[in-house]
């Protein structure tokens, strides 16, 4: 990170959520580590994809999506049903451990949406006790990022999800140190990172260890609220470094392939 002389120097990535980018002074600060925190069904994955999709299409960026549990096709089908035109992206799937290097070597220079299907990679080792299948996936993730970055193919990282990463790596001892090191790795590589954090239904913090929001540069909070028989989604900025953010709670609406943040009318 370099020292700026005025705030206009901060490059921002639009979330492409109508009315929400204004609340963010134009978007998410580039190279920040952002926590997308919410309970299940709050469109965390879709919003992250929305940021990456628009950066790829509009700014020739490259994004890598680490899906630790959801299958690639399930993820992409979900985006197609939301009317994202995937033909505008170069889709690359990393789904075999011995072909990771080859996959990366064959990627063109821009407009790539790379899905690293860690769920499938895990299946390759699940019966191999010698390998300790449920540990140390963080190093696979870091190595893929490093290799993509060497080829300038990694502007945005989406990690789906932090909770799954905790299970698949050793975070229980010194989680604060390990998470700090991981966030620093992402910052050092000048990557804008969207980390999906599942808030447990009755959880106290925004992540499993309750420290994630302190270490992240920004937190976008997603929620569901029930009113009578209807349920509405909400979006708000809980924290955003380098930004005078509007921290109001907005209603999150998705219609006609477009996200909108609607201002709440006081009851």
């Amino acid at each position, binding site marked *: 990170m370099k020292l700026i002389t005025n705030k206009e120097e901060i490059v921002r990535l639009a979330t492409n959520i109508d009315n929400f980018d204004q609340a963010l002074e134009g978007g998410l600060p580039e190279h920040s580590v952002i926590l997308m925190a919410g309970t299940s069904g709050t469109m965390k994955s879709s919003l992250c994809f929305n940021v990456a999709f628009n950066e790829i299409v509009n700014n020739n960026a490259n994004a890598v999506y680490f899906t630790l549990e959801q299958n690639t096709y399930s993820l992409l089908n979900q985006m197609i049903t939301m009317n994202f035109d995937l033909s505008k992206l170069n889709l690359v799937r990393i789904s075999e451990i011995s072909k990771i290097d080859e996959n990366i070597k064959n990627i063109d220079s821009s407009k790539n949406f790379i899905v690293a299907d860690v769920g499938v990679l895990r299946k390759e080792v699940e019966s191999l006790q010698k390998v300790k299948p449920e540990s140390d996936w963080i*190093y696979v993730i870091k190595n893929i990022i490093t290799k993509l970055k060497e080829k300038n193919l990694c502007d945005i990282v989406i990690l789906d999800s932090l909770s799954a990463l905790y299970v698949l790596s050793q975070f229980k001892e010194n989680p604060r140190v390990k998470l700090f090191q991981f966030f620093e790795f992402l910052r050092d590589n000048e990557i804008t990172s969207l980390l999906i954090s599942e808030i447990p239904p009755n959880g106290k913090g925004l992540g499993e260890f309750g420290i994630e929001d302190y270490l992240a540069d920004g937190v976008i909070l997603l929620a569901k609220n029930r009113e009578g028989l209807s349920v509405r989604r909400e979006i708000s900025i809980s924290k955003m470094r380098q930004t005078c953010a509007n921290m109001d709670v907005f209603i999150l609406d998705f219609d006609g392939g477009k996200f909108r943040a609607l201002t709440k009318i006081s009851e």
Partner: protein
Amino acid sequence: MKKEGFSVDQAISQCAFSNLFKSGLRFKLLFITNNEKHKIVMLDSQSKKQKQVNLDLKLNKTLGGEHINEILFYDIDYNNTNEIIITTDNGRIIVINLNFDEKQPLSTFNSYNVNIYDVFSMFAQKIQRKTNSKDKITELFQGEKIKLSPKINSILFPNIITRKIITIAMDKYLINLDMNDFSIQNYSDLGSQITHINQINHNISIVTTQNAYVLAIEQLLSNKLDLKTALTINDTNITKISKIYNDLLIIKENSVKRLTIKNKSKWAYNVEGSISADILNYDYDYDGYDELLIVSKSGIIHALDKDGKVKWLYNTEFWNTNMPLFFSHKGLTKKQLVSVVTFDGKIYLFKPKGILDLNVEPSSAVMLDYGFYDLEYDANQYLTGNLIEKIEINDTILDNFKLDNEYLLLVSPKGNIYLINVFEN
């Protein structure tokens, strides 16, 4: 680099390798399993020809689908031929004797019958022991149904002095069996499940238990084997134990500690990522002292000296789950190298000594006035692995073995087996 290979047409989850025969060094044996089917592959180390023997039906009948814990090659009946000894998580031990005439030419290899028989097959609940005490071990051995967990961790190690006793670890018990009739000589309750055993010397074995106590067990020269606790270490999460000279290397998830047999710590070294491969402990650079090569799932190789000081580091960029190997070739010129194989199928061959890493910027403390780096001053921190060659195999690698000190034998979980001559380039 010459690569040869073949496939065994089945997924592999576990394997072991041995020169099975004490006489006739020509044949080597690889035992592989995917926990449901078991296969023996015999390799002719000269011609590199291989013969596969499918043991599916015979072993399944005996094993009943149990998970294999450990495969040991040992001449258990002293006929100068190693047997394959398998222990299962049901506490069963199966000894397989491969009976074929090695004098026949290899071309008739197909006609050999693999004669598999159980030297003994033993369930824990069937073992009877007369005892006056009414402790838990009585329940274990007298009941028809086992009262402890059905998943018994069984580890076997032969007593190399008495040659009449083998010791097995079942659950939390160390049990000495007479090899003539497999009757129980004595046993010891170690308090919690036994996870690892390593023989340090002829009469000391180190036993790790689940509650993380490490015990040095003295095996006395007697049929009535005494199991005496010589050392207890209070430590947690110990995964492996190895030895260096007369000391112990205590390996935990992310650290290695050198400990004297009297429980005095000499040094400790931490790594990133878990250590799942065995440590190479050998004087591979011929400086007169053993070196250690530690690999972990961070992908970083750590070459240490006997005092735990870094000699060189190298990042292989993927999980290292296979034990590093040392090769020494005594041809016209003596060559030595160490190999590290990553799980994603990259083979790194290094000269044993590191070289200066030009990518590391030395701190000002070691920069001399004249602009030269003082290599005598803690120079090792600027050394990296002296890579001779990196070979890529488009396959994942589960295990690696050394064959005839010049071939690297690689086994993939997909059922592919590769042979690489590491000195041929």
